[in-house]
């Protein structure tokens, strides 16, 4: 009897996942694994996944049946870079959340994009710190109530895609889990490119975001598709901008590094 298409890439003995019911992590996993399947990979042998700390960092470790390094909070990108430099033939993919990549790890994100480091970074953006109980994130919309902004967030959120594009990455794009097909196609496209590829997947956090809005997660996902999410208080949140912020084909860091080394070795 056939199983779910993703099962062959997963440690099914560990299912169901620890994620909350309706958590977008599983949908992002589906998009990624469907992309992998459509590209012809029968397994994840050629990949090494690096993740940080947070709910989405648990996607590859332990659920993907693959090599994975589960690092410190915010430090997936430098570990991935060191690994990729030492083993350029490996397909190194970073999967982590918005807090991990765009808050504590923002410094590493910017410089990896600047270097055009040959990594695929999939940032699962649920606009909150989910694992630790629903605190504000740099991607939390203005006005939103979280456990550390109990009277409404007074900070404007960060547009990580724009930042990465400006820093010089070859690819920067944002989709939501409601745009399954586009997210999957974007991942496939990114896999075929060199340099730094950044894909932000806006995703529901059932326990700390959706719950506060008092709507079912399926409604939240519909609203992601319709381009807006209710927030309440003050200015509220505008539309979520989806699409590709950058699509270049410049020499990646790995290529440049190895050319440099080979030139010097003489």
């Amino acid at each position, binding site marked *: *009897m*056939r*199983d*779910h*298409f*993703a*099962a062959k890439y*997963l440690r*099914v003995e560990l*299912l*169901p*996942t620890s*994620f*909350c*019911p*309706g*958590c*977008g*992590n*599983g*949908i992002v*996993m*589906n*998009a990624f694994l*469907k992309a992998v399947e459509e590209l012809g990979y029968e397994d994840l042998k050629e990949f090494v996944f690096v993740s940080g700390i947070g709910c989405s960092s648990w996607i590859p470790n332990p659920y993907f049946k693959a090599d994975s390094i589960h690092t410190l909070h915010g430090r997936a990108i430098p570990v991935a870079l060191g690994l990729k430099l030492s083993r350029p033939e490996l397909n190194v993919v970073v999967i982590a959340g918005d807090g991990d990549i765009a808050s504590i790890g923002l410094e590493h994100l910017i410089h990896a994009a600047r270097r055009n480091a040959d990594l695929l970074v999939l940032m699962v953006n649920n606009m909150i710190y989910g694992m630790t109980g629903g605190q504000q994130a740099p991607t939390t919309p203005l006005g939103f109530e979280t456990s550390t902004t109990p009277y409404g967030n007074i900070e404007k959120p960060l547009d990580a895609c724009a930042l990465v594009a400006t820093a010089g990455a070859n690819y920067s794009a944002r989709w939501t*889990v409601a745009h*399954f097909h586009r997210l999957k196609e974007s991942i496939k496209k990114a896999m075929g490119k060199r340099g730094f590829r950044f894909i932000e997947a806006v995703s529901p956090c*059932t326990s700390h975001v959706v719950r506060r809005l008092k709507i*079912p*997660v*399926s*409604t939240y*996902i*519909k609203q992601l598709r319709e381009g807006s999410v209710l927030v309440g208080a003050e200015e509220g949140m505008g539309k979520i901008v989806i699409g590709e912020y950058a699509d270049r084909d410049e020499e990646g860091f790995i290529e440049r590094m190895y050319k440099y080394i080979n030139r010097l070795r003489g």
Partner: protein
Amino acid sequence: MSREFKPCVNIDRCKGCGICVDVCPVKIFKISISPNSRGYYYTTIVGSGCVGCRLCEYMCPDFAVYVVEDSL
């Protein structure tokens, strides 16, 4: 040759989030009135006429719902 699609539910993996119920274009799913071994009210197949769009399979965060194709 007609294609027949059969939706399947892995009851133990389902967490009753209801996404499949919402995305299915032919409204095949409904949340059950009894819970699974983990206490989740899992999704059940109540309708027919699955068109094989696999939206349920792609949008299920727990790999609990999927479509099997029986080609005739």
